[in-house]
């Protein structure tokens, strides 16, 4: 642990029936959420899903039209931001351009009436935590994007807040820097023990960084679970389609087996059913990397017509079509792949535990 870091117990947050209307539009709709102390939670969703509005209400920049937010048992629903003792990192860093790096970092301490010497010492420590010791006298305009982001982080953690909010903090950085900062923020999180709520539209970022990911759509939580479960057992078709790639094949469920339009009948294991699947229209979902290529008439294989072969080094993407016109994608290792020609008939096989079955209501 870096010498400046002090572990604080993270805040515990309860959100109940949260709602925010802008005119007629409900940006956040009856949203409830429990964030245990020290958790790293990502709010993930497309633009307009309400994820940023939730963060704005946690910070106090927006007042909910209904519902309540409690931080460590204290009702904060209507509390002004300056009284919440929250650290926040903004999308565009929002460092004060007229203040030097050290003065930026010391700003929250100054607002809390710390003495000058105390401010400088603690700000220098926070800069050390984000590995920017010695940069204190520079102006923000003299720093690179990644360095500015570190300064913004230092400013957010300098007074040891129990809750850290991050509003797409990495979206302005280029890819390499973004990956470096992801690890950096994770390291900080585990060192400081602070609760983190992180808004992003980048699913990779959410899966990499967060303990749990909440997927939002239309102001509602679609699913909230750990990264692995989210990816391997999406709770509904929206989550399934939103996280990673997913093949979705229309089918009929008859209570024990699945009929595909082209005539195959599959008998997925009990565990493949997501929620209650009533007889009738259903969807079979399967990740492209869980498919393998075989002969078209191999037992258990789905026959398809190959349309495109996209070679990408380690892996190859195969785009094929079922008889009913459904597109199906397979990502297979390039090594050992037979030479395949577009237009060829192939078979696609899978392990039974790769199957997911959604009823009509799970759309």
């Amino acid at each position: 642990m870096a010498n400046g870091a002090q572990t604080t117990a993270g805040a515990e947050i309860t959100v109940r029936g949260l709602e925010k209307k802008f005119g007629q539009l409900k940006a956040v709709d009856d949203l409830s959420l429990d964030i245990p102390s020290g958790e790293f939670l990502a709010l993930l969703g497309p633009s307009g899903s309400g994820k940023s509005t939730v963060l704005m209400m946690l910070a106090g920049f927006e007042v909910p039209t209904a519902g309540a937010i409690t931080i460590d048992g204290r009702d904060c629903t209507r509390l002004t931001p300056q009284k919440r003792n929250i650290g926040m990192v903004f999308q565009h860093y929002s460092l004060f351009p007229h203040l030097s790096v050290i003065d930026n970092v010391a700003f929250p301490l100054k607002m809390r009436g710390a003495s000058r010497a105390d401010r400088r010492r603690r700000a220098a420590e926070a800069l050390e935590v984000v590995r920017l010791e010695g940069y204190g006298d520079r102006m923000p305009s003299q720093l690179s994007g990644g360095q500015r982001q570190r300064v913004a982080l230092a400013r957010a953690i300098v007074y040891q807040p129990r809750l850290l909010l991050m509003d797409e903090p990495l979206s302005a950085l280029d890819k390499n820097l973004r990956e470096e900062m992801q690890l950096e923020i994770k390291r900080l999180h585990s060192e400081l023990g602070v609760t983190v709520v992180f808004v992003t539209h980048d699913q990779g970022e959410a899966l990499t960084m967060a303990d749990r990911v909440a997927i939002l759509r239309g102001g509602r939580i679609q699913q909230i679970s750990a990264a692995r479960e989210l990816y391997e057992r999406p709770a509904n078709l929206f989550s399934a389609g939103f996280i990673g790639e997913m093949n979705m094949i229309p089918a009929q469920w008859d209570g024990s087996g699945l009929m595909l339009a082209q005539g195959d009948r599959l008998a997925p294991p009990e565990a493949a059913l997501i929620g209650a699947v009533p007889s009738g229209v259903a969807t079979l979902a399967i990740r492209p990397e869980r498919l393998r290529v075989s002969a078209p008439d191999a037992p258990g294989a789905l026959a398809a017509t190959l349309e495109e072969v996209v070679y990408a080094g380690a892996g190859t993407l195969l785009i094929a079509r079922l008889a009913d016109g459904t597109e199906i994608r397979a990502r297979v290792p390039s090594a050992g792949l037979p030479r395949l020609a577009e237009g060829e008939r192939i078979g696609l096989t899978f392990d039974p535990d790769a199957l997911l079955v959604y009823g009509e209501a799970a759309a």
Partner: protein
Amino acid sequence: MSMAGFLQPDGRNLSKAGILLLMAPFFLLIGFAFLYPLLSLLSISVTEPQTGLQNYERILDTPVYGKVLLRTLWIALLVSILSLFLAFPVAMAMVSSSGAMAVFITACILLPFWSSVLVRTAAWAVLLQRNGIVNDLLQAIGIIDAPVRLLYTQGAVVVAMTHVLMPFMVLPIYGALRNIPPDYGRAAAICGAGPLRSFFEVTLPLAMPGVLGGFILVFLTALGYFITPALLGSPQEMMIATLISQQLREFLDWPFAAALVGVLTLFVTAITLLFSRVFRFDRMLGGQV
């Protein structure tokens, strides 16, 4: 930072010579209508009636002229400060409003430009006269018993000049405030700053370029202002522009009037240099937030 610069229709950067050519009419006009008359006035001031500095000595030797100069500086300062305090809230309101409200405020700021300064000054004369609306009002609420002299006073000059010059303060401050991203206010708030601290620690320092720009604009304009002091001011409390005009038109004393112009020019130049030295003019005119 790389700037696109002036673009030709084909999208290429204009050459240096091309830029100079485009600006030539402007420089010609400045030279012909500003530099040439100013320089010839200044030369009159040191060559007539004889070569020497006797015109300037006369300004220094006669206390009343020094007084006029000091009064002019004082009134210009007062007008600038008043404008600043009136303009800042207006600029803030402009930045924070949108839609119809923003259009309304902007119109209120710009509308006076559609009428001449003469009309606006005359309007103040109507308001401030002995049986004008201001006297009536003051009597009605019982502050005064009988009409007082408001017109032809320094107060009238300050009020009317502030009214006329305030837009020049609003616009640069508005420009500076508009360049401050709203996230700065949020960042200050989440760092624990209440509205007042947020204003003094973040908003005001970042608006300083606009404040100084507006201040210097209003101050320098007020220094040489003529119409309003001439129409609303007291003849016993002249400002320098009215004095110059009097010397020219009533006493036909061109050399002495020219010396007064020389002194005014000296002050304006000195103040501009001082400002640009202390506050970095280049930053003031945009660029860095």
